[in-house]
């Protein structure tokens, strides 16, 4: 048998049909659904008289639209169009008999945080969702990627996806990370090195000592942003850290099935002599705490740097950088640490897990946010929120002057009332700094939770290593 990558192995284990022209049907083990990209798919099913083939493998939760303020179960807390979308998901979940976590359920949260938390995401699975950050679930050694609404409908009806196999890319992070450097800095640095189209057509496997040393939360942060590097999916081979995280979760296998699953999971790694179409190696020791300066996630620099000149780029990127600096209201040569901010957002499927809140609270302990700053923490799920309250993190955030919110996507994409006003500048732990992403003419700097917390205290982008 020829050597295989982890991606090859998962692919082969899910190939339900291959046509003569090479078009494949990949069987889907878990289909996660949220309110924004699913209504048209369910409508399509109804119109064609079709049904959900595997309701037991389909899990729905509203997250994009939901307000994160108290009293949100009151229908008036939402705008009418948001209310209609959430109500449509409620109805579709009931009509088609799929698993559902409604807004008032403590387990509700961002779909990519809820899935792993409830043990739905397991090694070796295929996982899809009508959301590009489905890549998150790759942290478990699952092949997970975002799909469009037509594909959501296709998976609902057939439990398969029409696919062509992608190429294999290995991203190795060697050695140890320096103090103050986190999973977010790894994933942003990789995108900075490869560009937002560097992973197009590939599935990335992240490996190396620095990846192995990460917790599951950190690994999810890394895989989450594979899509910002152009790759639909990012993977990390499962190991003891993975098994420990999964064990005992509500939908994890139990008893004899756990043993049986472990037996298979332990075969889920890339063979030593497997073929890679592309290899990127980055030294862990050389990664610094980073921030973005522009309007593409590839616009990444260590916090110690200055804003670049557009002419330092080539091709279409020169004009793009010029446009980005204009949009961001920045001048070439400006020190990144001189950039003043007025808003801090800690949360999202990238950095809304317990470890992220711990890292931010660690910086904020005994400190106050700068006067006039709007700062909010939006836990990724109701359970993350409950745990943070139990650990005393919520008190630290509140005492520092942060708003302590309910779970949802919130200001990561600003579909709910949490938005930037034109010209406002945000230190954000989310994943996209696109024009208008966090609100019309809003300006976003992406960074780790610790870096965002540091910026909240000083009022400007700050090197977290100088805060301790």
């Amino acid at each position, binding site marked *: 048998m020829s050597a295989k990558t982890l991606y090859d192995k998962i692919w082969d284990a*899910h190939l*339900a*049909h291959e046509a003569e022209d090479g*078009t494949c*049907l990949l*069987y889907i083990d878990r289909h996660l659904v949220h309110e*924004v*990209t699913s*209504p*048209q798919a369910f*409508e399509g099913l109804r119109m064609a008289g*079709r049904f959900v083939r595997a309701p037991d493998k389909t899990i729905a939760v509203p997250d*994009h639209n939901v307000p994160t303020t108290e009293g949100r179960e009151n229908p008036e807390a939402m705008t009418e*169009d*948001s209310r209609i*979308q959430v109500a*449509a998901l409620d109805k579709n979940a009931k009509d088609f008999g799929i698993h559902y976590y409604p807004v008032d359920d403590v387990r509700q949260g961002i779909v990519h945080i809820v899935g792993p938390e409830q043990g739905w995401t*397991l090694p*070796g*699975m295929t996982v899809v969702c*009508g*959301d*590009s950050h489905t890549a998150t679930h790759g942290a478990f050694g699952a092949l997970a990627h975002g*799909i*469009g*609404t*037509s*594909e959501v409908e*296709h998976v609902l*009806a*057939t439990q*398969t996806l*029409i696919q*062509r196999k*992608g190429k294999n890319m290995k991203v190795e992070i060697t050695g140890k990370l320096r103090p103050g450097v986190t999973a977010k800095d790894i994933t942003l640095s990789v995108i900075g090195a490869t560009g*937002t*189209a560097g992973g*197009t*057509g590939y599935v990335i496997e992240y490996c190396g000592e620095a990846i192995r040393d990460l917790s599951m939360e950190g690994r999810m942060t890394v895989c989450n942003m594979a899509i910002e590097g*152009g790759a*639909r999916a990012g993977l990390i081979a499962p190991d003891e850290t993975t098994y420990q995280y999964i064990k005992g979760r509500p939908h994890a*296998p139990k008893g004899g*099935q*756990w043993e*049986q*699953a472990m037996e*298979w999971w332990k075969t889920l790694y890339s063979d030593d002599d497997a073929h890679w179409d592309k290899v990127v190696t980055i030294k862990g020791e050389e990664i610094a705490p980073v921030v973005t300066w522009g309007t*593409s996630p590839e616009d990444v620099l260590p916090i110690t740097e200055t804003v670049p000149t557009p002419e330092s780029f080539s091709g*279409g990127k020169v*004009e*793009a950088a010029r*446009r980005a600096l204009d949009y961001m209201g920045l001048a070439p040569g400006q020190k990144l640490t001189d950039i003043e901010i007025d808003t801090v957002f800690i949360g999202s499927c990238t950095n809304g897990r317990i470890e992220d809140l711990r890292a931010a609270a660690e910086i904020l302990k005994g400190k106050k946010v700068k006067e006039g700053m709007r700062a909010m923490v939006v836990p990724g799920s109701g359970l993350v929120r409950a745990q943070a309250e139990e650990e005393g993190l919520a008190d630290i955030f509140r005492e520092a002057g942060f708003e302590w919110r309910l779970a949802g996507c919130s200001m990561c*994409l*600003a*579909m709910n009332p949490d938005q930037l006003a*034109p010209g406002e500048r945000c230190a954000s732990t989310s994943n*996209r700094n*696109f*024009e*208008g992403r966090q609100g019309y003419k809003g300006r976003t700097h992406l960074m780790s939770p610790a870096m965002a917390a540091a910026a909240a205290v000083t009022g400007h982008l700050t090197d977290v290593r100088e805060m301790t």
Partner: protein
Amino acid sequence: MEKFEKLSGIAAPLPLVNIDTDMIIPKQFLKTIKRSGLGVNLFDEMRYDREGNETPDFVLNKPAYRGAQILVTGDNFGCGSSREHAPWALADFGIKAVISTSFADIFYNNCFKNGILPIALPQEQVDVLMSDAEKGANARMEIDLEAQTVTTSDGEVFGFEVDPHRKHCLINGLDDIGLTLEKAAAIDTFEARAAAERPWV
């Protein structure tokens, strides 16, 4: 789905790299439960000012390009969010083909589900097509999916690659789900085998 065979139309030049799906259709328009009606909000934040007035400089607001059916754009078009609202908005506006050096995977896939043909060509060819598009309404570009060619208004012809299955579906306006359901027996067999081998799933 509408069939795509040949297209002769006006091409609008949009020479920006990394145009993301947030730019194509901003999030406030994702709160719909329908697929139609998004064309008016295509490129909303570039196309209109805050009061809803058209931005005269934006290409699709220029008289020559209001009826454009082809977009010629910079690298990595359609990156970011998986929202199919992006191709829905393009299709609703009347765009039937997008030409670039590269496309983000999910967007690329979503196009074919909505009768839009994304065409990836080398930089120097996109440069020629961009210049051709800049000629405005007097220049019509031609796309022949069967022959897999793009022809400029000057008659210069470029061949392009497209997956045979996707080409077949686009030319015949076929519904993917219907095609897959014809293979239900294979799915049943796979499902039974997987359930035996991996009962915890």
